Structure formats: structure tokens, C-alpha cells
């Protein structure tokens, strides 16, 4: 505990920051690859990497469950689907289809304009540029430890409640957020565990209905997709007319 306090006092490399930059570079870099390459197979591969890196970013933001879902559904499902599509349509003529330079110039111009606006907006608010979460958590932990030390010096016995509180603060400082998958699961069936204690919002404003809608939607989509993509024997004859 004392080491932790020492570390907080000195300016050290923030590994969270480092990890963020590494994964962000991966994500952005491969997104650029996706954009620039004309080969559809490479595009799909780059997308996988980019999406995986994005899921890393989600982990870093504390959204463990969403990150895991991103990996499983996106990287594991959607992209595989895409790659199937790529393979099914991958004839020589379509693997690389070049676009005209004018399209490129126009696209970059418009995209650059949009990006500049968005970037400007992202850094518009000073409070958003940095986070004091870690510092605050560390400070709170240190203060509590000081208080406990003072109590001990007075000869008081440390109670079980105080031990539990200390443990909670340590976890907050070390691991950040509590795990949320359970709460997400409850919210999807309509119970908001995270809001249950708040008197102004009774805890039953869950997502049961959207969840059901999405389920039905998915089912319909799957049926529709199967219907659309089913093989048709005479399609070429029809198309040739």
C-alpha cells in the first residue's frame, strides 16, 4: 500500500494511456488500410484487425462486456459473413476494382472536412481532454488509509465494515470499474440494478422491449437474408434479357 502511494506521488508512465495509444494506432491504421487498398480480400483482413483493436479500446474504457461482444459478434460473426461474401463473389475481375482519381480526391476532401469538424468538436471541452478518475480514486484510498492509521493509533479496533470499505476503495483504484455483465443482463430483461437505489428513478426502466424487438428483428433479418440469398436456377436467363 505504501508503494502505491509512492507511485502516485511521482510522475510515472501511465500504462493505461500507453495501451490506449497502441490500440488506437492499430485501429486507425488498419482503418486507413481498409480505405486505401483496392483489393477486397486485404480490405476484409484489415477490417478484422481494426475491429479487434476497437474492441481493445472498449476494454480500456471499462466496457468489458461490450468489448467481448464486439469480438464475438463483429470479429467472429459479421466479418466472417463478409469474408464469405468476398469468397463467393471473388472472381478475378472483382478482386481489385479501381476507382477514378476524381472520386478519391472528392472523397478525401469531403471526409477531411468532416474529420476536421469532428476533431474540433472532440477537443472543444477542456474537461474532456483528460481524466482525474485515477487520481481521485487514489486520493480517496490514501485518505481512508490515513484515517484508519489514525484510528489505530488511537487504539480503536478496525471493524469489518471498515475493512470492506477499504477493500472496495482498493479495487476502485486498481481495477477501475465494477464488472457490468450481470447488470446488462438484468437490464435486458427489464430490471435496472444500477438504478435500483436511486429514489428519483425507480429501477424498472429496462430494455426488455427493445431487446424483444431486436430479437424479432434479427429473426426476420435472418429469414429475409436466407430468402434473398437462396439459389435461383434461372436467374441468369432472366438477367440476360
Amino acid at each position: 500500500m505504501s508503494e502505491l502511494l509512492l507511485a502516485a506521488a511521482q510522475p510515472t508512465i501511465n500504462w493505461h494511456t500507453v495501451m490506449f495509444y497502441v490500440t488506437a494506432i492499430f485501429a486507425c491504421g488498419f482503418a486507413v488500410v481498409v480505405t486505401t487498398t483496392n483489393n477486397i480480400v486485404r480490405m476484409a483482413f484489415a477490417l478484422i484487425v481494426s475491429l479487434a483493436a476497437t474492441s481493445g479500446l472498449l476494454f480500456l474504457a471499462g466496457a468489458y462486456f461490450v468489448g467481448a461482444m464486439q469480438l464475438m459478434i463483429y470479429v467472429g460473426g459479421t466479418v466472417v459473413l463478409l469474408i464469405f461474401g468476398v469468397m463467393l463473389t471473388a472472381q478475378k475481375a472483382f478482386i481489385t476494382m479501381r476507382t477514378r482519381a476524381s472520386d478519391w480526391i472528392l472523397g478525401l476532401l469531403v471526409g477531411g472536412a468532416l474529420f476536421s469538424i469532428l476533431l474540433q468538436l472532440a477537443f472543444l471541452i477542456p474537461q474532456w481532454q483528460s481524466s482525474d478518475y485515477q487520481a481521485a480514486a487514489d486520493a480517496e484510498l490514501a485518505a481512508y488509509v490515513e484515517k484508519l492509521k489514525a484510528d489505530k493509533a488511537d487504539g480503536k479496533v478496525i471493524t469489518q465494515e471498515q475493512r470492506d470499505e477499504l477493500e472496495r476503495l482498493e479495487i476502485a483504484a486498481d481495477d477501475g470499474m465494477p464488472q457490468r455483465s450481470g447488470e446488462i443482463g438484468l437490464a435486458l430483461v427489464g430490471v435496472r440494478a444500477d438504478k435500483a437505489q436511486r429514489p428519483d428513478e425507480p429501477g424498472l426502466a429496462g430494455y426488455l422491449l427493445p431487446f424483444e424487438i431486436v430479437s424479432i428483428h434479427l429473426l426476420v433479418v435472418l429469414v429475409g437474408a436466407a430468402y434473398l440469398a437462396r439459389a435461383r436456377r434461372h436467374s441468369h436467363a432472366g438477367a440476360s434479357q
Partner: protein
Amino acid sequence: MQTLLPYLPSLLAIAVLLPLGSFCAILLGAQWLGAKGKFAGTLATTAVLASTVLSFFSAGIWFTAHPAGAVDHAAHEVPPVITGHGYTLATLAGTNVGINYYIDALTIVMFCLVTFIATCIHFYSTSYMHDELDDVVDQEALLEDGESLHRPGRYARFFQSLSLFCFSMLGLVLSGNYLMTFVFWELVGLCSWFLIGFYVERTTASTAANKAFIVNRIGDFGMLVGMMALWGSLGTLNFGDIDQQQGIFSQVRGEENHYALKVPDGMVRLAAGRQIEALALHATEPLTTEQLAAKVNAEMPVWREANLGYGLLIIAGLGIFCGCVGKSAQFPLHVWLPDAMEGPTPVSALVHSATMVAAGVFLVARSYPIFLPEVLLVVACAGCITLLIGASIALVATDIKRVLAYSTISQLGYMMLALGCGGWAAGVMHLVTHACFKSLLFLGSGSVIHAVQTNEMPQMGGLWRKMPWTAGTMLVGCLAIAGIGIPSVFGLPIGLAGYYSKDLILEQVYAFRSENPLWGSFFFAAAAGGACLTAFYMFRMWFLTFWGEPRAAKRFDRAHESPRVMVVPLVLLAILAVCVAWPAFSWFGLPTLSRSIEQARPAGIWADMHGALWHITLPEESKGHTAAVTSPVGLIELGAALAGIALAALFYAWKVLDPEDVSRSFHPLYHTLYRKWYFDEIYQAVFVRGTMALAHCASLLDRLLIDRLVDGLARLGVGLARLSDLWLDRQGIDGLVNWFAEQTYRLGSALRTLQTGSLRQYVMLIVASTVAMFLLISFWTLALTG
């Protein structure tokens, strides 16, 4: 038992409703009633059997409460009647129209009769209609290509109609006002139509059904007129008094008038409309309603003396009788009944001999208090003519069922004659006994037809060897209808059922003759001659069918006695035909038929009636029961019957006389009889053709005058429309619409170039417009905030 008297109406109502329940169940659930609806027969039979039990139970209750004692003509007792009000359908002009009941001994007797015969016939039908369980090949219904018709069986439908008929008939007997009577009257007519047209694919059957229905409509029209006359003048259609409200009977034969017939005040008032108007207008000072009523009441005896309203009562009576003429197949509306024999034989037995056609007689008996002597004379004349016509045609008919049908017409004529001559009990008693032996005869004929598959008597003969039970029971029936009996043994006459009733009728006509020699002689001759003819044609039928040598060997070989379920009803009805009218039951404390009927004699029908317009006197019935009348009449009756039987035996059993020879020598008469007095031809020529000619004239008028007018108007309209089309539509409206269309088309053509179909371009445009929008908004907010 007496404590159950208050429940009597409910019991009878249940007995009425049970067949309705069966009808509904078969109608709605035919496909669940076992294979091919076999259970339908069981259901209908059970329902009507339950009704029978309830009816006899009710009879027990009734006759315990009101024992039918020895007839005392001097006592002049008012008959016990239960009237009541079931349910109000509507209140019209201050009077309730509803479901009422009127229960007296007549109702009870009719209930027992109808339900018992219906039960016998239901049992009989379950076997007789057995063919209808499977698909049927109807040999008599030919398709256009000459093939016989194949159709699915209609077992369930038969019992459905039969149940509905039982319900309607019982309802008719129970009903307590003319409207309800009329409703059930039409319902039995409807059932009759269903059942005559049961083999609807046969042209003869469907035509006969329509004929019966239409001919009955003519009678019902008259009945409606009579009902309106009663309703308009008396303000009620109820028979009896209900809840202090005077019914028709007590208005016509009021207690204060010692139940003697008197034109009711309402009718006098209606007929004296002009006089009342004069009273009101010529008063010196304005009158209040009460004052006017008092003046009218003061004038009432004068008007009544002047026979005001008498015509109205005649119209009412004749109208009601007109309905009965149609329903009971009296001259001149008798033509439908023989054709109605196209229906299945059990139907002929139940509907067209025992019950429905007797409903007319029943209604005359029920309405007896309101019938004036003049009306009754018409009744007697109609009955007399019908009796002769029916009997004469039956002499030459060869179709076994038609013989019975004409016999039915003739016997109904007997009943009407009896009622018309003042013999209320005689007519009703003949109704009951006739129902017993005529249903027996019909069921027997059905059994024969079932065995030999033909209706024609020339193709039968000698059948008694093959079907002894049928032959025996039918012989009983023939003896009963012929009226065989010994005039006096131990002080009591003894004989078959028909003897008692026919004897009563003849006695009454004899008594009538002594009062009115002219009419009476004719009536008595007709009645006595009719008795002879009855015996002749019945035994002609019996000899032709069962006696002698078989005339069609093939049919004879196939013939066989009917199954037990058909024979048992025959035997039951034969027992009834023998002993239903025996007076000996009173020795055991049971109500005899004549005493039961005597108990129901309406109040006031115990005195002579004198016509006011015509000189006519109806003797009261006990005048026929004096020794001076009974002994000669009994002998005449027996002699006539025996003579008829002997003549038939001469012709058909002993073959002393050759019928062919006789018919040839009396050819014109024979032919007239054979063609049924040309009634159908005359009606066809006069009424059907006449109607057709009238319709043709109307159609000519339509086509030449009205159609031309309409066509001219239409042409005018078309011309106007063309004109407006040319200039208003083409120039004005079309131009406007076309201008809009052109402009829209031009705009669309201009806009279509925007749709390049290039996905990339669309994406680019979206992004560019987003950026532009953002920039615009931010500049704007900047400009606003400064």
C-alpha cells in the same frame, strides 16, 4: 293429483317444447347424430314419447280435478277452463298480443291424441324411412338423360320436419288466441310443405307441395279477414278471459246473457259508425266522451234490434271458417289433399289424415261460440258437399293412398256437417276416432307399399297370406271407419270407434232434419248415403289389396310382412280404433271419450240456436239422443254400412258383378269421378289460366306503356349526357386534368436527372450536406452570440 293443477300449463308447455328441442338439435347437430343421422330418429322419437307421457300425465291431473261425470244435458254447467298469459309479444292499440294458453278438456284430449299417434308414427317411421339412411336411388325422379336420381339419404331431415310438425301442432292446440293459432297454423302448413315435398326431385312431389301451400294461402287469407274483423271490433284476439280482460268468447256469449249468443257491443258500435257520428254531430251542445258513450249505450238495444253488427259477426265466422276450409280440405279447396299423398306414407298418416287436416275441424270447434247459425249452415253445406265429393271419387281411385286421401276428405266433411248441424260433440268425437283409424289405415297402406313397392291396387291382391298382421289391422280399421256396431246391447250400443261417432253425427243430422226439413233431408240423405259409400270404398280397397289372387306375381313374391317396429304401432292403433270410444270405461272410473268431450262443450252450446237472417234452427245436441231418434238412426247406419260392405264383396270378393262392366255402362259418371269431378281442370282453366291472362294483360300494359315511357326518359337522359360530354367534359374538365398531368410530367422529367443511381455520389452528398449544415448552424450561432 289435484295439487298439481297449477302446474298443468307448464307441463303442457314442456310437452309442446320438447319436439321443438328435438327439431333444433337435429337442425344444428345433424352431423354429430351418429352415422348418417341415425340418432336423429331416436332423438325425435324420444322427444315425442316424452311429450306423450307428459300429455297423459296432464290428462290424469285434469280429469282428477274435473271428473268427467255422466252427461247431464239439463245441468248447463260452464266448462272448466284454464286460461293464462305466458309472454307479451307486443302491445298494439292498447291490447296485449302474446303467447296465451286456453286449456279445457278439448285441449287435453287433443294433446293425448296428437302425441300418442305421433309416437306410433315416429316408431313406425324409424323403420319405414330406413332406406334414407344410405344413398338413395329414386326411381321416380328421372334426370334429363333418363337416369334415375342418386342422392344422399335424408333420414335426419325427415325427423327434423316431423319434430317441427309435432311442436307446431301441439302449439296450435294449446294456443289461447287467434294470432298464436294463426302462427302455429302457418307453421303446420310449412311443415306440411316440407314433408309433401320430401322427395323434392320428383316433379309431382314438388308441385304437390306448392299446390298445398298455395291453396292453403287462399284459406288463410279468409282467416286473416276474420281475425281482423274480430280484432277491429272487439279489440282482442284472446279466446278466454285473461286477467279481467274479456276474451272473445265472453264478449259474444256473456254470462249476463246466460251464455246465449249476442252480437257484442264492439261490433254493434263498429257497424253503427254512421249513427254514432250523427249522434255526436246533431247534439245541441258539444258532448264529452263520457256523455257520448252514455248516449251510445242507450241506443245500443235499438241498433241490436236492427241487426247492426250481425253481418260483421257473420264475416268473422265465415273468415275463420275459410281458413278451416283450406286446412281441412273442404270443398272448394279440397284439391290439395290428394296430391299431398306424394309425401312419405307416415307423413300422410300423421299430417294429412290424423292431425293437421283435423286442425280445421278443431278450430271450428274451438271457435264455436262465435259462429252464428247462418255461418254454421255454410259449414254444414261445405261439409255435406265435401263428404259426397270425397266419397264418390274414392269409389274409383286405384291408388291406395288416394283412396285413403279421398276418404279423409269425406270424413272431414262428416265432421264439418256435424258441427254445422249443431253437433259439437259429434264432430269433435268423429275427429278423435277418425284420427285413430285413419292413421292406422295409412300406416297399414304404408306397410303394403313398403312390401310391394307400388301404390296401385290393381297390382296387389292376395296379400293377406303374406302379411297377415297388416291385413288384420287394416280390416279392423276398415270396419271402424265403416262404423260397424250393434245398436243396443245391455242398454249400451257396442261397436268399433267409428260407430259411436258416426252414430252421433247421424243422430244430430236427424234431429236437424226435424227442425229444418228442407236442408235436413238433403243432409241426412248425404250422410246416410255417405256411410254406405264409405263402407263400399273401404272394403273395395281392402278386397283389392288383400283378398283374391295376386295380380302381379313378381311383386307378390317379393312382398313380406313388415318388421316388428312397424307392426307394433299398427296393432296399438288397431286397439285404439276398436275401443277408444267405448263407454264401458266409465265402469272403471276412467273418463270416456264422449264424456270428456262433453265436458269441454263451450258455455251456451246447450240451447237451440235460431238464425236471425235466415229461418234456420240448430237443435241442441241432446235432442238427438232421445229414443225416438237413436233406434232408427242406429239401424239406418248399420244397414248402410253393411250394404256398402256387401256391395264391395259382390264386386271384388265374390266377383258376382264385374267392376269393368259397371264402369263401362256408367261411363260418363265413371269418367267424371275418375277425373275427380274435373276440379283440377276447372281450377286450371279458371284460376291458373285466368291469373296468367291477367298477368299477361298487365305485362302488355307494362311493355307498351310504362316501358316506353321509361325508355323515352332514358333516351332523353342519354342525349343530355352526350351534350354535356361534348362540351363541358372534353373542353373544361379534361383540359384542366390534362394540363395538370402535363405539368407534373414535365417536372418529373426535370427532376429525374438528379437520380444518378451512383451510390458513391449519394454518400458524398450526404456527408457534404451534413458538413454544410454544421457549418451553417455554427456560423449562425456564432453570429447570434457575437
